[in-house]
């Protein structure tokens, strides 16, 4: 049994975000982090490893520096890292990305008692599409928004969150699950873990490695294989300046209430 976790290195949008004059994101000036939901997926995998001793493989598609993130995840307890990186893969939308990641997972090999995990969504694109699209390309059943995962034999029972409650879903391995933050609290790296991380295998899959997979075709990967195109990107304008009221006392509040009442807002 093994668990393959797909992770993404993302710009930290919770801090200061820099935008270039042309409306694109100034990635160079921003910190990168492991996508938060992906850390929950890694933690879920490591918990299953604690229980069963299974192997955990972390996979990411991205530029070569993303290997640093894989080392970090190996320091948390993952056994192997795979960096999927090639110029041919650049410019991929979610469809093309899922083709490539599915081919990488195929290369690792999915066996009958394996699980593929992803975070629900990445904070840069917020699409939540790559997980389900990998599942489709691998012909695996999927359960998204997992808030609890229990594995007994070849059956996985998942608490799948809805806006107004949850569903309990049973699925057999192999399957793909996407994880949300309510699932767990990710562990930190340990000193021993950091020490061991550099002895663990980290492989790179480039275009040559994956090109024989039927999913990898110039018409289905990269910019040319992406069904969607960006027509334009832009920053929203600031709203017209409002009124700063003087003071912060009873009089100020009465003035505000008067204004709201006069405008029939209240």
């Amino acid at each position, binding site marked *: 049994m093994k668990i393959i976790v797909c992770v993404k290195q993302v710009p930290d949008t*919770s801090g200061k975000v820099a935008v270039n004059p042309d409306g694109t994101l100034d990635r160079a000036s921003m910190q990168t982090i492991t996508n938060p939901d992906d850390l929950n997926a890694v933690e879920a995998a490591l918990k299953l490893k604690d229980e069963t001793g299974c192997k955990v493989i972390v996979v990411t598609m991205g530029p070569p520096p993303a290997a640093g993130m894989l080392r970090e995840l190996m320091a948390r307890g993952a056994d192997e890292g795979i960096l999927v990186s090639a110029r041919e893969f650049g410019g991929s939308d979610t469809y093309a990305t899922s083709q490539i990641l599915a081919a990488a997972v195929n290369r690792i090999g999915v066996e009958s008692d394996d699980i593929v995990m992803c975070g629900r969504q990445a904070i840069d694109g917020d699409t939540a599409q790559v997980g389900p699209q990998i599942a*489709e390309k691998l012909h695996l059943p*999927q359960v998204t928004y997992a808030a609890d995962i229990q594995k007994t034999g070849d059956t996985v029972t998942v608490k799948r969150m809805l806006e107004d409650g949850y569903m309990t*879903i049973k699925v057999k391995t192999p399957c793909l699950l996407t994880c949300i933050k309510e699932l767990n609290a990710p562990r930190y790296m340990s000193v021993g873990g950091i020490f061991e991380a550099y002895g663990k295998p980290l492989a790179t899959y480039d275009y040559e490695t994956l090109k024989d997979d039927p999913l990898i075709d110039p018409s289905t990967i990269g910019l040319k294989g992406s*069904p969607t195109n960006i*027509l334009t990107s*832009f920053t929203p304008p600031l709203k017209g300046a409002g009124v*700063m009221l003087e003071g912060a006392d009873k009089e*100020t509040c009465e003035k505000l209430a008067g204004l709201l009442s006069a405008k029939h807002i209240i």
Partner: protein
Amino acid sequence: MSFNNTDIAAFKDVWVFCEQRQGKLMPTDFELISEGRRLADELGVALCGLLLGDGVEGLAKELGGYGADKVYVCDHPLLKNYTTDGYTAAICQVIEAYKPEVMLFGATNIGRDLGPRCAARLHTGLCADCTHLDVEMNNYKSFLKEASTLAPEKIEGMDTAMVMGEKHDVSRDLKMTRPAFGGHLMASIICPRFRPAMATVRPGVMKKAAFDQTKADACEVVKPAFELSEDDLETEVVEIVKAAKKLVDLIGADFIVSVGRGISKDVAGGIKLAEELAAELGGVVGGSRATIDSGWLSADHQVGQTGKTVHPKVYVALGISGAIQHKAGMQDSECIIAVNKNDTAPIFEIADYGICGDLFKVAPLLTDAIRAAKAAR
């Protein structure tokens, strides 16, 4: 019948996946049908609902009342509860048979599970969590003039785009606009080479049309052929549990009083003051991501990019600094009132009325002042 997803001319009509849970239509369905009506009119085609379930045919006519010309109903015992595999199988078969050019889903936890799976199977593009849709170029350009900081000449030159190294006329493409990078950037996406162009649309953003009984009566119900068997279902729904606590209805609220990190010195007290102000206004309490991440409020209260998008009549932000991810969810409120100790807090940039002060002092005074102002009328 062959299905060639690149034969653009063979596809027509705008379709909306109409989600039902336990036999009840979702509010998002009416928003999407209303928005879909506008898009269908711009394209000069029919608007069709797609409804899946078990014994749900009776729900179809109501969708007509909001603008659907036709509703395709897939009724099957195996479609009673939502499953990714069952719904994907049925929807893809029906899409392959009827070839809609646009397919919309609500960006609910179910729509965001189903949409990508269908798009991957059909080999087409899907744009996630859209907040604005257009077909007609003049409408799209007007939208950009108002909602972007793009130069006018750039907007005027938007009729074509470079696609696969060639100039492509985008006038009949669905322009799907969505926030990215936590709301720092907006992007308009097209799906020029494949059909259907698919989008999930954020709940609460599109405006619901007025219900029209005549249109409901005229709505045609179609039962398309599809095949589904137990073998198609690899996931089993064991139970569906509704949240015991009544969730706060942020999207439907006219008045929202939200709290942020500013309540940290007395969390319970701060929430109580917000509740009192909300009660006086006849509204509900919301919160920034910090208040949800800290466990002060449950997730259903969250306003912002990762929470709900709201546009109430009045939005009061108490002790919220106004991180872009929060602003993304509330900046279209009709009137924004901000109370914050820090006079440089970004929330003041979008506030209609700002008070620089301690929310613990200002909120109760404001509650009293509003009560008095109402009584004086």
